[in-house]
């Protein structure tokens, strides 16, 4: 294609977008909403994954030891846990140590614990804190430890992660359904805009055919028009999310420092690529749908 022809096609596409102003605007609007939603979900998912990885990397299994366990039995237990292939690091936390930790955590409210220090009165249990080799093994490790004699109760953070995943997957399915519906309506709106564009140019098309313009020469401006509608529609969510994500990350960093966020530099590139490609894809699909149906060149 000559560069001149290319410029001509793009010019024709823009003229047509302008001429069918309201329809073009509606198409672009729906693309904007669709891609805004999609982009937000992308960022949310990235962060939930990031968060759960973070939780997982910190998680350990805590096995509380039964009160009746003697000192020598305690040692046997320790050896048994260390010998488990999934266990990486085992730490014994005595009743007294647990008490001290709790007191530290409570800080000024530490006075509430007064009178519970002594062995007999101490309500806390001694425990083993076990880190696993890989986060995925945590639940397995927990199950094995629970079966050991002398272990009263087992707690582990994966439950939180599992619950997190259940919630995310529900959100994702609902979101996916929404976005699919929106994506389809965006495509149909674009298709309809292109249909109008074809109709408003039927005289031109008739003349082009009569003077021997090729099929593709006639089609290109409409394909580009669809592409432009999609691309313009992806621009707003792109810029919006790009800017607001950086702002959100900064805010979280200052106000909720312990909440890990994916650094903008890691996601925004992908976001830009995905959204613009999806916009273009929606546009081209919409216009080719219309061209096949209404432009029998």
């Amino acid at each position, binding site marked *: 294609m*000559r560069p001149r022809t290319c410029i001509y096609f793009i010019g024709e596409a823009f003229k047509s977008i302008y001429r069918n102003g309201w329809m073009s605007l509606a198409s672009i609007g729906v693309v904007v909403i669709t891609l805004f939603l999609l982009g937000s979900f992308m960022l949310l998912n990235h962060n939930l994954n990031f968060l759960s990885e973070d939780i997982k990397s910190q998680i350990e299994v805590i096995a509380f030891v039964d009160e009746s366990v003697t000192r020598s039995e305690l040692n046997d237990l320790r050896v048994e846990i260390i010998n488990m292939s999934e266990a990486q690091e085992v730490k014994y936390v005595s009743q007294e140590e647990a008490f001290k930790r709790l007191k530290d955590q409570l800080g000024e409210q530490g006075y509430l614990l007064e009178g519970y220090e002594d062995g007999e009165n101490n309500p806390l249990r001694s425990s083993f804190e076990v880190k696993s080799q890989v986060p995925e093994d945590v639940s397995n490790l927990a199950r094995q430890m629970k079966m050991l004699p002398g272990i009263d109760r087992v707690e582990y953070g994966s439950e939180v992660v599992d619950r997190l995943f259940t919630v995310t997957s529900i959100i994702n399915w609902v979101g996916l359904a929404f976005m699919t519906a929106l994506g389809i309506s965006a495509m149909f709106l674009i298709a309809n805009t292109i249909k109008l564009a074809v109709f408003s140019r039927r005289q031109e098309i008739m003349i*082009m055919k009569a*003077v021997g313009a090729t099929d593709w020469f006639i089609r290109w401006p409409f394909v580009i028009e669809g592409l432009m509608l999609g691309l313009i529609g992806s621009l707003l969510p792109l810029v919006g999310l790009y800017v607001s994500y950086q702002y959100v990350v900064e805010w979280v960093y200052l106000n909720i420092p312990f909440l890990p966020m994916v650094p903008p530099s890691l996601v925004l590139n992908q976001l830009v690529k995905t959204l613009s490609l999806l916009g273009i894809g929606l546009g081209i699909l919409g216009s080719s749908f219309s061209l096949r149906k209404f432009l029998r060149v």
Partner: protein
Amino acid sequence: MQVTAIIQFENAFKIYPNGAEALKNINFRIEKGEFVFLVGSSGAGKTTIIKIISRELVPSKGKVKVLGKDIASMKRRDVPHFRRNMGLVFQDYRLLNDRSIYENIAFALRVIETPEREIKRKVMEALDLVGLKNKAKVKPVELSGGEQQRVSLARAIVNKPSLIIADEPTGNLDPDTSTDIVNLLRVINLRGATVIMATHDKEIVDRLRKRVIEIEGGIMTRDELKGVYRHET
């Protein structure tokens, strides 16, 4: 002497999808450089013949060759380049009202990817031939019907095609203006193009004494050199 047939219909039939038999067993040859009137009353089949020549339609049966190409077996993607060798003129001018006369003609060149530097020269040459050089910047609605048809003629010849096909080009014009248009077609013919003009304008046909092919009800009823519209009236 062997002359090359520009158009050749051999036992050609056209039956429309709805069953209408528009052409029945049509046979004729048109040689290079001829000027031919295609006459017949409304609904006779003139437009159908013209659409077959420009390969907007294909014959249902029989053989039609135009510019050396077989119409029925022509591939879709070869049609555009085939059409670049002919100039089509219609009764309703088919001009684009949102742009100037110059742009209307330039459009026809642009969409077949003529280099920009050739466009201006070609457009002005064509406008000169039809006598509208001074109206280049004007929009079609500001012109009379006759002038609009001259613009459409300029568009048809701008690429110097060897064949001009006009379907009732004077159908919307008064007699004097019609004469102007036909005279222009004669000039174009004298410059070497083969011209076929479908019409039911009796006066013009009778005056010019050119070849007449007559169709009635889809059947060819006459093919006469130096003919008139009707033998007996």
